[in-house]
């Protein structure tokens, strides 16, 4: 639609003339595709559409396959790299240990002593993990990786428990366990609770921890 009346009139006239021409052209005797031609076209189309592999190609056009395959490989590679970084033993726990040691060290103890303790603990943890993993060397590589991760986690918990045995008072220990319960770290809480009971069997526990 145009707002100019002159243009609109010219357009209408053109459409009218074209309509006249079309009416004359499409009168009786206008050509139609012959039946044989229709059959030939339909048969050719049927052959093309029924060709094996066409359905698959239509759903997954070949031009997308290269890009799709490349993207998949890149995502898998990145996933493996991230997974391997997470599996490195000891690294994630160091910062946590550093914070704990700072908060738990006796007042008279120097910062250097706390750092030394942290380093020796980390080395011990690595050694313990290696020793536990060593007998499994004959197992498939993936199994060994998972086992090492598991052992590292266990040994970390054990070592943390051991370290706390020498440092924590029962009150601090109970505070820590209450924090663990409030943050819903139930596995670690049960470990801590067990360790606490073995060290202070007669110390009363608060009602929240008795369950």
């Amino acid at each position: 639609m145009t707002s100019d009346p002159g243009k609109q009139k010219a357009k209408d006239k053109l459409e009218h003339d074209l309509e006249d021409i079309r009416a004359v052209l499409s009168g009786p005797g206008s050509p139609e595709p012959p039946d044989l031609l229709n059959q030939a076209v339909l048969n050719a189309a049927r052959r093309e559409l029924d060709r094996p592999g066409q359905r698959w190609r239509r759903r997954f056009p070949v031009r997308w396959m290269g890009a799709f395959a490349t993207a998949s490989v890149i995502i898998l590679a990145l996933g493996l790299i991230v997974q391997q970084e997470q599996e490195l033993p000891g690294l994630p726990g160091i910062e946590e240990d550093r914070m704990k040691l700072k908060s738990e060290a006796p007042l008279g103890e120097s910062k250097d002593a706390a750092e030394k303790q942290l380093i020796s603990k980390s080395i011990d943890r690595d050694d313990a993990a290696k020793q536990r993993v060593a007998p499994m060397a004959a197992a498939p590589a993936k199994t060994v990786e998972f086992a090492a991760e598991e052992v590292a986690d266990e040994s970390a918990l054990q070592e943390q428990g051991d370290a706390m045995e020498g440092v924590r008072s029962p009150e601090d220990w109970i505070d820590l366990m209450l924090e663990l319960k409030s943050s819903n770290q139930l596995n670690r809480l049960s470990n801590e609770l067990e360790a606490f009971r073995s060290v202070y069997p007669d110390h009363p526990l608060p009602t929240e921890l008795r369950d």
Partner: protein
Amino acid sequence: MEAFEHLYERHRTGLYRYVLRKTGHTATANDLFQGAWEKVVRARAQYKPATPFRAWLYRITYNHVMDYFRRVQPTTGMQEERLESLEPGPDMQAAMEAKAHRLRIAIRQLPEKQKDALLLKLEGGLDTGEIAAVTGVNRETAKSRLRYATVKLKEMLKDDSTDTPDDI
């Protein structure tokens, strides 16, 4: 296959007339018509539903016909056959048929670009924008070609109306 049959049924007549009037030769038109549909089937994965099927179909056909004309320059023999096919048949006595016959001749005498625009409009039912897209020109050019073609046809028909059909 049913979808294809449906599309074929809807567009076959217009497309056939477009190709036939463009070439002016029945056997060539049959070949080009069949070839165009084969190209449509093979290129179906490239069709984007956002664009009208009719415009896509005529673009493929237009390119197919143009390829043919580029490949095979019109020969003397073909010209003769074309002229022969312009002769009025024995049954073309009625005034309406004679007029249609003169109109077909007038269309064939149009410049190719104007003929393309006119046939895409008349036989394909394409609008100006679609004609522009099919022939690779802008909308105003397509509209202008359509207008010139219409004016020329009217002039030709006016001149021819004073002659007898045998003079054509």
